[in-house]
C-alpha cells in the first residue's frame, strides 16, 4: 500500500538497470512475445522492443529520473512470459518461473514473488491465449468487413475459433493436465471461470451473436460444453496432428447446430399446434 503512494518516483531501479544492460546485448528470443504485452507501452519501453533502437535517455543517477521504469505488475508479466519457455521441461512450477527470471537477469529468488503451485503462471498463460484469440478473430472480422474474405457460416466459424484456441495448448500439452487441476483449486476457480466465460463470450461476439434473450445463456452454455469436452479429448489424443480431436470438435458443433434447428422446429411446431387447438376451440364453441 505504501508503494502505491509514489509510483513515479519508486521506479523498479534494479530491474530498470537490468533492462538497460540487456539492451546492449543480443535480442532475447522471447522478446517478440513481450511486445504483445503492452497495449499502450510507456515511451521508455520502445528501446526494449526494438533492440537496435536508441537507448533510453536518463540521467543515470540512482535511476530516479530514468524514463523506462515499470510497475511491479509489468515486471511480473515479463517474468511469467519468460517462464513459459521452461514449462515443457519443468512443468507449471516455481522452477519454471525461477528459470524464466534467470533469463531476464534476475535472481532465481524472484520466483518467490509467485505462489509455489504455479497458479499465476497458468492463469497468465490462459489470459495470454485468450488475448491472442481475440486478436485473431478481430483480424478476421476486419478482413470480412473489407470484403477480402467470405463471412463464414456459423458452424465453421465456431469450429475454427475453438480449434485455433486449442492449438495454442499444443506446445504445453504434456503438462496441461497438471495445469487444469491447478485451475480447479478453490482459490483459482473465480479467476479461471472468469477467463473461460470471457473467452466464450468473445467467440460468440465475433460470430455475430446479438441476442438479448434467453438464447444468450444457452449459446454460451453450449459452446462452453463443446470447448471443455474437446479440450479433454485433446489431452488423450495421440493421433497425428490431433486429427481425432478436430473431428470430434466438428461433430459436436454439428450436433449443436442440429439441436438448435430442432429447437426452432419444436418451437414452430409448438406454435402451430397451439394455433390448431385455438381454431378447434373456436369451432367447438360455435
Amino acid at each position, binding site marked *: 500500500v505504501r508503494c502505491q503512494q509514489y509510483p513515479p518516483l519508486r521506479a523498479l531501479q534494479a530491474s530498470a538497470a537490468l533492462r538497460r544492460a540487456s539492451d546492449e546485448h543480443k535480442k532475447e528470443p522471447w522478446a517478440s512475445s513481450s511486445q504483445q504485452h503492452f497495449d499502450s507501452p510507456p515511451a521508455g519501453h520502445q528501446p526494449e522492443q526494438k533492440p537496435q533502437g536508441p537507448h533510453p535517455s536518463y540521467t543515470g543517477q540512482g535511476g530516479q529520473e530514468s524514463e523506462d521504469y515499470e510497475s511491479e505488475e509489468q515486471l511480473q508479466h515479463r517474468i511469467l512470459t519468460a517462464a513459459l519457455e521452461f514449462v515443457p521441461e519443468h512443468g507449471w512450477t516455481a522452477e519454471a518461473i525461477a528459470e524464466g527470471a534467470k533469463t531476464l537477469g534476475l535472481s532465481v529468488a524472484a*520466483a518467490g514473488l509467485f505462489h509455489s503451485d504455479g497458479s499465476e503462471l497458468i492463469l497468465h498463460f490462459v489470459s495470454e491465449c485468450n488475448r491472442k484469440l481475440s486478436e485473431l478473430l478481430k483480424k478476421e472480422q476486419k478482413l470480412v468487413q473489407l470484403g477480402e474474405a467470405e463471412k463464414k457460416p456459423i458452424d465453421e466459424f465456431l469450429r475454427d475459433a475453438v480449434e485455433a484456441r486449442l492449438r495454442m495448448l499444443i506446445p504445453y500439452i504434456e503438462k496441461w493436465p497438471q495445469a487444469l487441476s491447478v485451475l480447479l483449486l478453490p482459490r483459482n476457480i473465480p479467476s479461471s471461470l472468469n477467463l473461460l466465460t470471457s473467452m466464450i463470450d468473445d467467440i460468440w461476439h465475433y460470430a455475430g451473436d446479438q441476442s438479448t434473450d434467453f438464447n444468450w445463456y444457452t449459446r454460451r452454455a453450449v459452446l462452453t460444453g463443446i470447448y471443455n469436452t474437446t479440450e479433454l479429448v485433446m489431452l488423450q489424443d495421440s493421433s497425428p496432428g490431433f486429427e481425432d480431436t478436430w473431428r470430434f470438435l466438428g461433430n459436436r458443433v454439428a450436433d449443436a447446430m442440429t439441436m438448435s434447428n430442432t429447437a426452432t422446429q419444436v418451437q414452430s411446431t409448438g406454435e402451430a399446434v397451439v394455433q390448431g387447438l385455438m381454431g378447434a376451440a373456436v369451432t367447438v364453441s360455435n
Partner: protein
Amino acid sequence: AGPEMHFGFQSVTEEERREKIYQVFETVAKKYDVMNDSMTLGIHRVWKDILMHKMNPCPGTLLLDVAGGTGDIAFRFINYVRSVRQRQLQRKLKHHQNLSWQEIFESYQKDKFNSLGDSQVVVCDINREMLKVGKQKAQHLGYSEGLSWVLGNAEELPFDDDRFDVYTIAFGIRNVTRIDLALQEAYRVLKPGGRFLCLEFSHVSNPLLSRLYDLYSFQVIPVLGEVIAGDWKSYQYLVESIRQFPPQEELKAMIEDAGFFKVDYENLNFGIVAIHSGFKL
C-alpha cells in the same frame, strides 16, 4: 558519547550497546541452542522450517545468512536444496529412458558430484564465539559442502554488491544497533530480483495471549537462563529486547524505506514471531 539507545530496558550509547550485545552472545554461545529449545519448547525449529519453506529455494541459490551464528538456517537450507536436487535428478532419469546404459551412467556420475546443484550458503556473524559453535556443529553433523563462515558486521557487510540470491536474518536483526544500515546493506548485496527474509520476534496484538506471553517471558525465561546457562542477565536482555523491537508494520515500513518491493509479513503463533519478506526489484 553517542545518541541514546536502548539495551533491553536500559538506556545506553550506540557503542556501549554494540559492546554489551557482543558480550551477551559471547557468554551464551555454547548454550545458545539448548536455551532456544527450552525457551520456545522446541517451537523455534518449526519457525525456522516455515522460513525455509517460504523461501522455497531451488538448486543454484546463493544464500547469505546474517547473524547466522550457530548455523540453524544454513543447515536447513542445505537439506532443502539437497532434497529438491534429488527430485530433479530423479525426474531427469525418468526422461532418460531412451538412452544407453553408458550415457545414463555418465550423466549420473556428473550429477552425483553436484548433489547441491551449485547452491551455497555463507554464514555471516559478528560474534567469533557464535561462529565457533556453528563450525563445530557443522563438523559434528557432517555439513561441509556449499557452506562457508565469515566474520562480519550486518551494518557493514564484507561482500560486493549484487552477490546473493537470498538474504536471511533469523532472530538477529533485533540485536543490530542500526537496523536501517543493516537493511541498506541487505539491499546492496542482493542481486536484482533477490529476496530479503527476516524471522524475528514481534508483537502480539491479542490481549489475552499478550498477557500470558508477557508472564512467560518475564517470569520463566530469565529463570531458565539462570538454571540452564547460568546467566540471568543475558536472558533478561533477550526478553526486554523483544519488547523494544519495532512491531510488524513499523518494520515493514523500514524495509520499504531501504528500497525493497512487495514487502509483506506473516505472523506465526499470533505474532510471537513474524517473517518479513521483501524483494529487490
